[in-house]
């Protein structure tokens, strides 16, 4: 179904881009809200001081530290936004999967129902020849489905394995049983099909197997 690859990027991609940007803007608003309240509080202290009232000077230090922390949080968010935006620069390329996983965990971390997730470091750098944007879409959608299915206290671990010479497997392990009967939904299944990716489900884990090379995808995009 590689003939659908570019349609998929345009239709689903736009929706996915919008959805991620909405959650990033929500995160930035929260950051600005904290900075705004802290600046307001500093103004309140200034007014009190003008009226001759005294206050603990450590409050000023706390406020400046808080503003600095939020600015760093904002820069970090914008770095992720920039990295995500550049994932559409080259349609198909050698893609470092660990980077894709790390970014997907950060981007899904902005969702209110996100769960504590860590990416296990892989001993060697594993790359696959694929669409970095569609791979990001697929991992993001998978994490989102798992977050929705898991309880608040659940923890998720992402592990990368080179299962065969021509295959790479991403394992999403969790510490509680989940019902993923409706996963993958049709949109996720479409992306998986184009990427030639296959899901295997167990009670406490989900494995996603991807080919190291997707010649159909490369030919499709190379041919325009």
């Amino acid at each position, binding site marked *: 179904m590689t003939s659908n690859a570019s349609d998929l990027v345009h239709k689903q991609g736009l929706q996915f881009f919008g959805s991620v940007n909405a959650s990033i803007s929500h995160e930035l608003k929260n950051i*600005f809200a*904290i900075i705004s309240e*802290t600046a307001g509080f500093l103004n309140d202290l200034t007014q009190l001081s003008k009226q001759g009232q005294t206050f603990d000077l450590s409050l000023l230090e706390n406020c400046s530290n808080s503003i600095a922390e939020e600015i760093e949080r904002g820069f970090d968010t914008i770095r992720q936004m920039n990295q995500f935006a550049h994932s559409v620069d080259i349609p198909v390329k050698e893609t470092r999967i660990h980077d894709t996983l790390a970014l997907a965990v950060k981007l899904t971390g902005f969702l*209110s129902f996100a769960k504590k997730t860590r990416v296990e470091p892989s001993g060697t750098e594993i790359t696959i020849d694929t669409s970095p944007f569609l791979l990001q879409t697929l991992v993001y959608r998978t994490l989102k489905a798992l977050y929705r299915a898991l309880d*608040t206290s659940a923890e998720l671990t992402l592990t990368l394995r080179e299962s065969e010479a021509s295959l790479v497997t991403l394992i999403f392990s969790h510490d509680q049983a989940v019902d993923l009967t409706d996963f993958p939904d049709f949109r996720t299944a479409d992306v998986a099909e184009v990427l030639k990716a296959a899901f295997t489900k167990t009670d406490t884990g989900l494995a996603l197997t991807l080919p190291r090379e997707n010649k159909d995808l490369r030919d499709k995009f190379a041919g325009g």
Partner: protein
Amino acid sequence: MKIILVDDETKFINMLARRLLLRGLDADVAYSGDQALEKASQTRYDIAVLDMKMPGMSGFTLKKKLLETLPEIQFIFVTGHGTIDQNGIPDQSNDIFLAKPLNIDTLIDTIRQRLDPDQ
């Protein structure tokens, strides 16, 4: 007047509570829906200022649960979303929504108006 502020952005509501206190308004804070329900079981709050999206329990779900304990409590929703769409949420039609970042004077005016619409 007793206020409860509920948001998982802890720095945001702690600062907001401090600023309200400087203006003579007593506000408790809760960092989750469960914590808010626990506090509401011990204190009679007049108004709750709720973040719409929180981990574990949304502001709308929390509203329904708080009403079981405090049927007279009023609500103001706070959101970081760009637009506020009430479509599909018919029972929210009388609620007030404020966008982040908040203006403290607007929040206080809204709280007072909510508790005393005739003022």
